[in-house]
């Protein structure tokens, strides 16, 4: 992480690197022989001439493939990316004549841009290979044979073999969709602009204005309301489970407590049982006509059913409590494993000095735990910001309220709201903006926490 923090110099460093690299390319051309020079145009030519058939053929095939893709397919979409299409779909008599499809134009346009970037990168690698081969030959060394090239993919270059597939997968199914959705945030893609029947186009920052605008067209009130609850929820969900889970772990771990394994196994049940089963059932248990209300009524503790899910405050408290049911066992497992790492002598000497249970907890256990589980707390917090299952399976973000815009409910998190916006309203543009907001919140919190975390600042604190 530290490399990214040198901030200000990064840009100038990049330009210095770029300048050096361009000079190197120029030198390769000026000093190179005709094989190298021709390789600037036909990638892999030099390698082929020098007998490195495997390298040469793969370069040539990649160049051919990418150029074919570009001219046969990519360019047709890329050229329209500025307008996202101009020809509307229309009806000619009974026949529908399809015009441009903005969705496809944006998606394949982006893909084409990235593939062209990949071609430039490969071209650079190709030039470098030629230059190096030439240098080696000049010094009288021999070039690696084809067999050696292939073998190196399982030895020296094994990282490339291992990472090729995962990186491609992440690129197509994560990077490209994310870039695409970020672009969507700047378009008017919603229920009235759905391809292929309708076009959508670039609208600049107007979606952001709509989301933040207070009064009038905007629904900033709702946004900040949902954001506020998301943060409150993540805070309680993380820290309550953390401290209570730690307490439970310490209780079970205490000397003289029998059946340790049994207690742990009972608690861990909530991790083992798929959440959609347990949470859906628990959600129904607290319904107005559900089991909990029924039992409370029968025992005479209440006179009328408690509207657990209809009242915003009750629903919020209940969700946090039910989350304890899911979360405590998880913390308990982790803390149990870590408790054994604390040197027993520390407790021993604290006991001799007359410290009671709470003092030893505060002075020994807690600082150690906070130090060791810092990263865990951060990931838990981030995970809770995006904790879709608990909210959605329990009560789908309800109760709804008339004071909230865009179908938001009182227990909706930003992600569940985003989900509703996508599925129920097809309001993709605002969903994309909310997604970007979630990213920003996550990134800012991560940065702040990361920079203040003791285990980062003071790595040897407990060693």
């Amino acid at each position: 992480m530290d490399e990214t923090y040198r901030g200000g110099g990064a840009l100038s460093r990049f330009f210095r690197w770029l300048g050096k690299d361009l000079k190197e390319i120029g030198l390769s051309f000026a000093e190179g022989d005709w094989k190298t020079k021709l390789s600037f145009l036909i990638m892999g030519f030099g390698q082929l001439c020098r007998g490195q058939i495997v390298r040469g053929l793969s370069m040539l095939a990649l160049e051919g493939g990418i150029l074919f893709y570009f001219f046969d397919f990519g360019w047709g979409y890329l050229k329209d990316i500025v307008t996202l299409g101009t020809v509307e779909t229309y009806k000619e008599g009974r026949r529908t004549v399809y015009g441009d499809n903005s969705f496809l134009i944006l998606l394949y346009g982006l893909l084409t841009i990235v593939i062209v970037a990949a071609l430039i990168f490969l071209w650079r690698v190709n030039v470098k290979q030629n230059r190096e081969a030439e240098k080696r030959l000049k010094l009288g060394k021999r070039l690696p044979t084809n067999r050696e090239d292939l073998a190196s993919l399982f030895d020296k270059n094994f990282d490339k073999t291992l990472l090729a597939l995962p990186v491609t997968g992440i690129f197509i199914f994560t990077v490209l969709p994310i870039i695409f959705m970020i672009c969507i945030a700047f378009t008017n893609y919603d229920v009235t602009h759905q391809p292929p029947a309708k076009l959508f186009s670039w609208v600049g920052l107007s979606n952001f204005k709509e989301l933040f605008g207070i009064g009038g067209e905007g629904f900033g009130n709702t946004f900040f309301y949902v954001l506020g609850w998301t943060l409150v929820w993540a805070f309680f969900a993380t820290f309550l489970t953390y401290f209570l889970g730690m307490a439970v772990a310490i209780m079970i771990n205490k000397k003289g407590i029998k059946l340790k394994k049994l207690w742990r196994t009972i608690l861990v049940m909530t991790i083992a049982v798929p959440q959609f089963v347990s949470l859906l059932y628990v959600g129904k248990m607290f319904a107005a006509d559900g089991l909990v209300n029924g039992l409370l009524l029968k025992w005479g503790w209440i006179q009328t059913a408690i509207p657990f899910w209809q009242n915003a405050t009750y629903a919020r408290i209940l969700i946090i409590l039910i989350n304890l049911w899911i979360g405590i066992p998880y913390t308990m497992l982790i803390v149990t494993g870590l408790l054994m790492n604390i040197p027993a002598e520390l407790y021993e000497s604290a006991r001799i000095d007359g410290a009671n249970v709470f003092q030893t907890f505060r002075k020994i256990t807690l600082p150690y735990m906070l130090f060791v589980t810092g990263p865990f707390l951060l990931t838990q917090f981030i995970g809770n910001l995006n904790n879709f299952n608990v909210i959605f399976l329990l009560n789908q973000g309800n109760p709804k309220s008339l004071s909230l815009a865009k179908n938001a409910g009182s227990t909706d998190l930003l992600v569940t709201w985003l989900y509703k916006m996508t599925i129920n309203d097809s309001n993709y543009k605002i969903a994309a903006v909310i997604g970007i907001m979630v990213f920003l919140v996550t990134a800012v919190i991560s940065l702040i926490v990361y920079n203040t975390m003791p285990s980062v600042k003071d790595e040897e604190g407990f060693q």
Partner: protein
Amino acid sequence: MARRRKLGNAGIYCILILMSIVWLFPFVGLVLQSFRGESGGMVQYLVPKEFSWKNYQFLFGGESNFPRWYLNTLIIAIFVAVLQTVIIICVSYALSRMRFKGRRMLMNIWLVLGMFPGFLTMICLYFLLKQMGLTMSGAVPGLILISVASSGMGYYVCKGYFDTIPKSLDEAAIIDGATRAQILVQMIIPLSKPIIIYTALVAFMAPWCDYIFASYVAFGYEKGYNVAVAMTRWVWTNDYQGYFTRFCAGGILVAIPVTILFMCLQKYYVEGVTGGAVKG
């Protein structure tokens, strides 16, 4: 002193017993409801008035596609568990044992990508799958593809474990003439059994809960559902009254094998989450 400790322990036992009741109560309720003979939705009493097998009979009686859904989920879970584990091992080995240009950058980019909410890309992914013909009737391979494709980003726990294996072992093996690939297959993998089991277990359990994306991809083709989608629909439909006890029965059938598997491999799970929590 001894008396005070005994008193304290008694208090702890009380708390633990109380907690156990709270923790097990929903599961007991679920089991009892699944055998409930009377129809209707959630009822206000715990023990059914009439016990019967009819909810289970319904699931396998050919009236619903439950066996098909179950099979779908099982297939997805097995494929995802195997493929995801392989990919995570590959990525972890490359990032932990090898030093190459752009390694730091790759890790930073993946870290940043992980901060975007998953649902953001849902429509785009759906569209990509649709182009490949992997929605509706192709939902099962489609869901496998999506789960596996981006799994490389979940390398943290596994890499953290690989990092603890001494590098001197690698160096010794290289001197003996082993290639990197041989080191991975013959040395690192056998040494990392616990973490591999953890990775596979987590990957296997996830598809059983996958509701969000699965419902989107399989929408409109009932035979392509997984159990979570199909049964969540039962609870949320208007006819929830008629299906609630059936949901409970199906839930039990889903929960039992997954829970047993989890309990058997619990040791490895604890090792994985503890290691993951500490190393981030």
